[in-house]
């Protein structure tokens, strides 16, 4: 009786699954026929004929759509990797402050984490872009000698300049993600038994040294998986770049869809781009995880 019911349930699930796929394929075919565009990727080699505000590699409107998409992908990679680094640094500091003995710091970081996590990322991005950067009047700027300057043109460092779009996105993504990373770090630290703190303290080992040699190595196995999922979220959240006008892979796809009507192809490209990005991130983290587990000679 039981197994026949199981088979029936599985049959129903399969039916639903295939019906949904069928409807989607049908819609696709109907749409393609209506627009008169065949499903192909030949258009990729045609000139894109739109300008980009920033490009890590040489780009001009006469370059192909494919090249424009690649530039967009690089722009995404650029903002994801830099936000990943900044948010990890910031999140670690705040996570430690949150668990530390200093009650003022702990209170401030708790407040930071709460406020950041309670407001939508889109709102925060808009805030940094429109209030933080564009809100600055033309004659307003914050600078430290010639080394560092913030104005409505973005962030200027002596060696390179970051546009205000990139800066706002970097700031918004980093701050947003850092609040989650801080919680991951805090959870990791709390997973180490109290006795470990008492043991190193009773030996006269300083808090700093104890944290580095005793607590962090034991907290890492609990931190890495949480960190990985925050990094994946960060990558996905980076598509909100379009809100501040940064030319990431999503924004460029959007432009191309408007120009060419190649929505299906573009979405496939977009999905593949993110698959590659996220596989890159999760595989790197898996490698780090392996290294940590292999370095651990105890159970």
């Amino acid at each position, binding site marked *: 009786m039981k197994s026949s019911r199981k088979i029936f349930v599985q049959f129903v699930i399969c039916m639903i699954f295939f019906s949904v796929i069928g409807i989607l394929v049908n819609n696709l075919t109907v749409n393609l026929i209506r627009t008169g565009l065949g499903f192909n990727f030949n258009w990729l080699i045609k000139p894109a004929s739109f300008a980009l505000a920033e490009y890590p590699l040489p780009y001009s409107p006469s370059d192909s759509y494919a090249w424009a998409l690649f530039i967009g992908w690089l722009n995404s990679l650029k903002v994801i990797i830099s936000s990943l680094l900044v948010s990890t640094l910031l999140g670690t500091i705040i996570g430690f402050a949150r668990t530390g003995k200093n009650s003022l710091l702990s209170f401030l970081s708790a407040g930071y984490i709460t406020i950041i996590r309670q407001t939508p990322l889109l709102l925060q991005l808009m805030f940094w872009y429109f209030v933080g950067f564009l809100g600055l009047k033309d004659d307003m700027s914050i600078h430290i000698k010639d080394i560092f300057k913030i104005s409505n043109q973005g962030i200027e460092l002596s060696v390179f300049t970051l546009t205000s779009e990139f800066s706002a996105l970097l700031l918004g993504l980093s701050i947003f993600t850092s609040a989650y990373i801080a919680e991951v770090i805090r959870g990791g630290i709390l997973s180490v*038994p109290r*006795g*470990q703190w*008492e*043991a*190193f*303290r*009773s*030996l*006269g*080992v*300083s*808090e700093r*040294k104890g944290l580095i*040699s*005793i607590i962090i*190595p*034991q907290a890492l196995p609990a931190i890495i998986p949480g960190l990985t999922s925050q990094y994946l979220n960060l990558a996905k959240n980076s598509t909100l770049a379009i809100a501040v006008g940064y030319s990431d892979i999503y924004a460029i796809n959007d432009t191309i869809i408007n120009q060419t009507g190649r929505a299906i192809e573009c979405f496939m490209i977009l999905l593949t781009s993110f698959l590659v990005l996220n596989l890159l991130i999760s595989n790197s983290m898996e490698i780090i995880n392996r290294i940590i587990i292999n370095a*651990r*000679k*105890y*159970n």
Partner: protein
Amino acid sequence: MNPIVIAKNLTKSYTKGLRALDNVSLTVNQGKVLVVMGPSGSGKSTLIRTFNGLETFDRGELNVLGINIEPNHDERKIQKIRRRVGMVFQQFNLFPHLSILENITLAPVHVQKRSQIEAEDYGMYLLSQMGIDSHAKKYPSQLSGGEQQRVAIARALALKPELLLFDEPTSALDPERINEVLDAMRRLAEQGMTMIVVTHEIGFAKDVSDQVLFMDSGKVIETSTPEIFFSNAQHERSRKFLNQLDKQ
């Protein structure tokens, strides 16, 4: 007589109105062994943990190794004392990610700035004293409880402490493993180590201790020599406690 620990009227509450320590006074002289007994929650751990600053206290005076500890001490000052006071915990608290020898050399190398080779030589000497030098390269999880606790004692000895604190060192051990740890502690006492030991091992207390301190509800009920305490305890509360221990 050189006093190592002098406590006067130590008082501490974790929660308002509930005293974990209530006017505790005691003196431990150099080379002596003090055993602390008392029912669960009587404040034994809290008391010995104030001696190396793992706990603060609210009122009273405390002098350890000639250094005054303030009620709300700062971390820097207490580190100086911790370098001269060893502690052994009920749950061993070995560092699981470090080898046995690394557990022992961590503090000498980083706190006393000794060379790695010097610290390892002395660490091996301590391990052989504890009869576990063959395990030096292993990790804590590969050792039995009794062996782990002997490693913990070796680790506490690595800084050549002038005072050793033990908080129920055998309570987490299987009965057949208890003696190997108590024997190691006996040898330390014979070598003249000053020790304060929270334990309910009557045999150990009778043989090794110079004084027994009995606590209840944060108060010192009685301080006697072991001869008097175990045969002719002065207080009703102590006698009751000993009766219960006998029954177990």
